């Protein structure tokens, strides 16, 4: 009997504003494994999907940036917990997408889960590392603290479909930004499944928005979008990266240029600080008594 059972195919959908819409355009494209065998259809996002994602991300920025760093860390840790529970699914998807053996794919997924935990720890520690009090010659307290940049568009790495993806999303949201990520064009399935994990991890809707499709089609409108504050070109090829950087110049977006990265190595805080702005506050120490500062 079990031979006669029809397997249930999964409909992969976008993750925008905490919901799972199809592409507004109704288009899909075929996703194959590394040997060319059909795996599933993925939504082929349009510029309008990108625009909707920006609206969703903008709506989410206030609440997410305003949440305490501790709370953001707890939610990022929760994502790692949820991923752990669906480890096998992701191992299967990564193995198919990247043509890896089960054990190598497992190593990738484990590293990705560990990366969430690593960035979860950073949320309430980064301010101590890159912020602090500054010595000034005057009766002022002078305090610098890192603040999120806002809405960040990310072109995810093309080769490393899951570890690379997590390595670019996690630092952006750990810093309090909202993100619109364009998944790897050839292997978007792990990214689209990650949306299902994020939706069940107490992450407010709109903080992470995942689009699949052609980066060359979607990314230019995000790069030119006046309501996007920064763009990470990690997965853009040289030609696309140049075009995107030109488009991004119009509203002075922060741009993180593509660079060769070993995603399995310890990441450091560079990607965190790339999307943080330093806010410096001068605060008078108060009335100066006869003996000098009252403090």
């Amino acid at each position: 009997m079990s031979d006669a059972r029809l397997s249930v195919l999964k409909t992969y959908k976008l993750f925008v504003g905490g919901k799972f819409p199809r592409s507004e355009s109704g288009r899909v494209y075929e996703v194959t494994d590394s040997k060319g065998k059909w795996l599933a259809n993925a939504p082929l996002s349009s510029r309008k999907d990108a625009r909707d994602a920006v609206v969703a991300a903008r709506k989410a920025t206030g609440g997410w940036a305003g949440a305490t760093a501790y709370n953001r860390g707890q939610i990022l840790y929760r994502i790692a917990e949820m991923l752990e529970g669906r480890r096998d699914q992701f191992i299967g998807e990564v193995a198919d997408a990247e043509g890896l053996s089960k054990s190598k794919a497992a190593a990738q997924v484990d590293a990705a889960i560990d990366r969430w935990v690593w960035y979860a720890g950073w949320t309430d520690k980064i301010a101590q590392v890159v912020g602090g009090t500054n010595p000034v010659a005057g009766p002022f307290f002078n305090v610098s603290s890192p603040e999120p940049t806002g809405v960040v568009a990310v072109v995810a790495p093309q080769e490393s479909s899951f570890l690379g993806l997590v390595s670019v999303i996690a630092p952006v949201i750990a810093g309090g930004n909202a993100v619109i990520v364009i998944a790897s064009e050839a292997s978007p399935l792990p990214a689209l499944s990650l949306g299902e994990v994020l939706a069940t991890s107490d992450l407010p809707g709109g903080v992470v928005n995942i689009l699949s499709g052609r980066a060359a089609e979607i990314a230019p409108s995000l790069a030119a979008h006046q309501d996007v504050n920064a763009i990470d070109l990690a997965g853009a090829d040289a030609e696309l990266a140049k075009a995107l950087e030109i488009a991004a110049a119009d509203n002075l977006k922060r741009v993180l240029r593509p660079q060769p990265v070993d995603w399995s190595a310890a990441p450091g805080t560079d990607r965190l600080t790339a999307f943080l702005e330093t806010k410096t506050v001068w605060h008078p120490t108060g009335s100066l008594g006869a003996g000098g500062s009252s403090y």
Partner: protein
Amino acid sequence: MPRHFHMKSIKSGHSPDRKGPPARGGDTRYARRYAHPVTMHPPPKFSSSGNEAAERLASMADVTASDGALRRFLHGLPGVDPVGLEARAAALGTRSIKTTAKAYAIDLAISMIDLTTLEGADTPGKVRALCAKALLPDPTDRDTPRTAAVCVYPDMVATAAAAVAGTDVKVASVATAFPAGRAALPVKLADTADAVAAGADEIDMVIDRGAFLAGRYLSVFEEIKAVKETCRRPDGTAARLKVIFETGELSTYDNIRRASWLGMLAGADFIKTSTGKVAVNATPANTLLMLEAVRDFRAATGVQVGVKPAGGIRTTKDALKFLVLVNETVGEEWLSNHWFRFGASSLLNDLLMQRQKLSTGRYSGPDYVTVD
């Protein structure tokens, strides 16, 4: 009964052969795609604001002669098919408006806005800021049309009138104990007279929903007539009267149709959906119903009445749907800000962002419009 089916088209100002403003900047990518600038239309010869309208309405005097006659007339109006109405409103909402048509519609919508601030916290400064925005909605693009009017509370009329003096932007004022309308008639009339004396060009009155729902139609009718009379200025001109039904409180579509006829019979120059202060405001369906009412009213009496949906219209997409409703229901003669208005505040920013998108090719953001 005089009929005016062959009136001269009221619409003017954008003949097809007219060229748009020249492209600026030299870079054709950023060339404006606006074919025709939308300007304030001159008031048509055929206007419902003067005494002429009152004379035409005299032909309907028999139905408003007594409470019983008015009730028989209003309850004799054909019943509304709610499913059909909503289906038609939804179907007309699916039209795709693109490129030059969209550019034209956006400019038209901007020119139809009654830019509104009706808050307890309104200050003279805020009203002046609103007026500045009505006069120059997008400081980065002076081709942007002005809004039709600013809409404020009566005590802010003088401030607003001073701020828009000498321009074609009108000052509209809510009156008659807006938004609830729960006050004695002399208070409502004093409220109205105050606003007119302070320089209001248009009065937005609320009907007494309590009386309407209790079936006292004639008292609602007499109240609208009294307010209309109060809209007259000493020099013989009159402020245009918009009558707000608060459709969200009228319970049924049949009631909206009855209220529309009641308001028009009493001399409304505009019928308006809502105050914007209740849960359900302007919807495509209730606006479609009111558009049908003004169409039928003109067919019956020859008097043209404007329509103003208000409240809850926030996006360009919504605004374009309403314009489609107007065009498909009453036609081009209503497609000007003399006959159709949007009561809105945040809608303007969305229209401006869409306008910037069309002219630059880049999606705009809320950082590039003024926040009221």
